[in-house]
């Protein structure tokens, strides 16, 4: 048989890649959150803190300046020199038109407080107008705050109107460049980035390792299925651990066990059946050829040969009937069962086989207790008892005895067939129920046996939840015991009620 075509699984469709990518995707999301949320939250906190701080500073300066009725450069410079710059990088005060009246950076450079002679300032126009959005909004009467984080520095600006008796007489604008907090946030960002890189590296290795580990077992299972599919039924997996994959491996092994057993039985059955069918056919062919090829054969011999052909044909018929019976037992579900009195069925069998026993010189005896009821079909129980008693007669000696008993033991009904016949060797006992198995083939054929009677008994008994055993009799012969669950009317009614 040609091996099935196996397509190579594409890289991105393989389970290993999918598992690995799933792990990576999950960790990528986690790392993304790790790198964004803390930084954004810190930024927001710092923005809020700066807003409060700068707004309060502009409010203080604004309230100091609103004492002046009109703003002039000199007055503003005087007031501002009395105020602390509070770490701000620039403070601007403008009049209502945006003209800069005070610029803290120019005031500081003009002080020359360190005693050093400062470089002459570049030529700057006398008037300067602060055309910043913050100033414009402030001169329109609004408080403004703006902050952003750029180049590891918090750049924050705020502006407020200076109001005197309801009139906007100017604006104050402040700028803070906070590099310390910016550096702090940058170091937080960098630390998170390094941690993320380490986690990403570990995740990459782990995802490759775990996905490989998981898919290696799936690959082993796939390989095993292919090997078994190619006909090597003895191949087994070694379950590792106690997870679902281990269970899958165990189930696979059980399945393969059954497959192997079924295959062996099938092969043996086909081989045995072929052999059993071939033997009578060969005999028929031989006898027919002899009649055809022998000139002037006397009528007595022809009659004997034709009689033998008829006997072989009967044997073929029996074999095929038994094979059909076994096939039915294998494939068809049990027919409608009913409570059957086993004692009554065995009495019928005994009366049916009494002439056969008489002809063989075998005495039939029985002991059947009443109330031995089992749930089965009457025909099948009849077949079981018939096969056992017929065998006991066939493989007995003239003057021998067959003893049949039906009785109850605990919750079981037992049928026992004891004979004083040729018996079964100890080593053959486990095989007597196998199909086409015969202890003494010559005798079996001579007695008209097919080698299937006990197989039919075993399969029929099992079909009704029973069992059958064979054991040697101490004084010679064999004992076959069949057990069925005793029919319990109360239990059955309970089940029906449910």
């Amino acid at each position, binding site marked *: 048989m040609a091996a099935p075509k196996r397509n190579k699984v594409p890289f991105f469709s393989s389970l290993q890649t999918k598992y690995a990518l799933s792990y990576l995707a999950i960790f990528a999301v986690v790392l993304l959150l790790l790198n964004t949320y803390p930084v954004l939250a810190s930024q927001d906190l710092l923005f809020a803190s700066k807003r409060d701080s700068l707004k309060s500073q502009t409010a203080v300066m604004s309230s100091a300046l609103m004492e002046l009725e009109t703003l002039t450069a000199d007055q503003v410079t005087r007031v501002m020199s009395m105020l602390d710059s509070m770490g701000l990088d620039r403070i601007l005060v403008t009049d209502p038109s945006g003209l800069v009246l005070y610029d803290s950076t120019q005031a500081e450079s003009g002080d020359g407080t360190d005693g050093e002679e400062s470089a002459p300032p570049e030529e700057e*126009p006398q008037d300067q*107008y*602060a*055309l*910043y959005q913050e100033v414009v909004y402030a*001169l329109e009467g609004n408080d403004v705050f703006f902050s952003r984080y750029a180049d590891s520095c918090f750049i924050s600006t705020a502006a407020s109107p200076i109001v005197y008796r309801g009139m906007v007489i100017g604006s104050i604008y402040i700028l803070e*460049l906070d590099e310390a907090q910016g550096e702090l946030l940058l170091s937080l960002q960098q630390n998170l980035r390094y941690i993320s890189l380490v986690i990403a590296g570990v995740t990459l290795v782990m995802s490759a390792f775990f996905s490989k580990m998981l898919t290696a077992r799936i690959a082993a299972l796939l390989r095993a299925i292919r090997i078994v599919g190619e006909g090597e039924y003895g191949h087994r997996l070694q379950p590792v651990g106690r997870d679902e994959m281990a269970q899958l491996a165990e189930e696979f092994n059980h399945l393969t066990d059954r497959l192997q057993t079924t295959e062996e039985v099938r092969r043996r059955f086909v081989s045995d059946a072929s052999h059993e069918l071939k033997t009578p056919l060969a005999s028929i062919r031989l006898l027919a050829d002899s009649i055809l090829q022998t000139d002037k054969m006397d009528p007595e011999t022809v009659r004997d040969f034709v009689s033998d052909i008829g006997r072989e044909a009967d044997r073929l018929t029996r074999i095929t009937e038994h094979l059909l019976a076994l096939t039915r037992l294998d494939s068809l579900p049990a027919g409608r069962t009913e409570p059957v009195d086993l004692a009554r069925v065995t009495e019928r069998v005994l009366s049916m086989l009494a002439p056969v026993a008489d002809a063989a010189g075998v005495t039939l005896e029985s002991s059947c207790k009443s109330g031995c009821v089992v749930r089965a079909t009457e025909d099948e129980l009849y077949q079981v008892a018939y096969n056992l008693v017929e065998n006991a007669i066939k493989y007995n000696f003239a003057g021998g005895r067959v003893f049949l008993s039906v009785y109850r033991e605990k919750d079981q009904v037992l049928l026992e067939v004891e004979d004083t016949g040729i018996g079964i060797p100890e080593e053959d006992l486990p095989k007597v129920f196998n199909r086409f198995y015969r202890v003494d083939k010559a005798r079996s054929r001579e007695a008209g046996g097919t080698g299937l009677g006990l197989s039919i008994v075993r399969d029929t008994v099992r079909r009704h939840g029973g069992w059958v055993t064979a054991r040697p009799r101490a004084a010679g012969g064999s004992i076959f015991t069949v057990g069925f669950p005793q029919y319990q009317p109360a239990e059955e009614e309970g089940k029906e009620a449910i």
Partner: protein
Amino acid sequence: MRRTHRLWAALLAAVLLLAACGGGERTRPDYMLYFLPAGEKLQGSALDWEPYSGGEDPSPEDLLEALLAGPTQEELASPFPRGVSLRSCDWDEEEPGVLQVTLSEQYGALTDISLTLADYCIVLTLSQLDGVEAVEIRSGGHNTGYRGNQRLQAEEALLWDSLIVQQVSGEETFS
């Protein structure tokens, strides 16, 4: 499989497009018309510009007419009151480099910071022309009384806080 490839290709194209868009910066044209930003901008310069779309060598009148016509871009707004028109635009005969601009009376309605913004929209626009060193702006033939200095120069307008520019770009000056 083919669908997956297409998805990857589309994703890559989108990333490249975003990268290309993100790196874009406005190139300065030869002449710019200064206006006010129209949106809710809280920080930065109070003036913005759009390119002058007229001829190659515009006269002061051309620039002023374009300025008074208002911005063509939606993100910009005009600083001038409705109905302002150009009366004249002449060079000062006594002081070369000084351009005297006379606008209609409606311009006189502007005061305080609104006036300053309008003034410097004109000054910054005209100062791009060769030879313009200062601009005098009159409304209906009169100087605006509450303006301290009538002769306005582009250098007087502080559009950006130099410390912020220095911090962000590392440059000493910003023009």
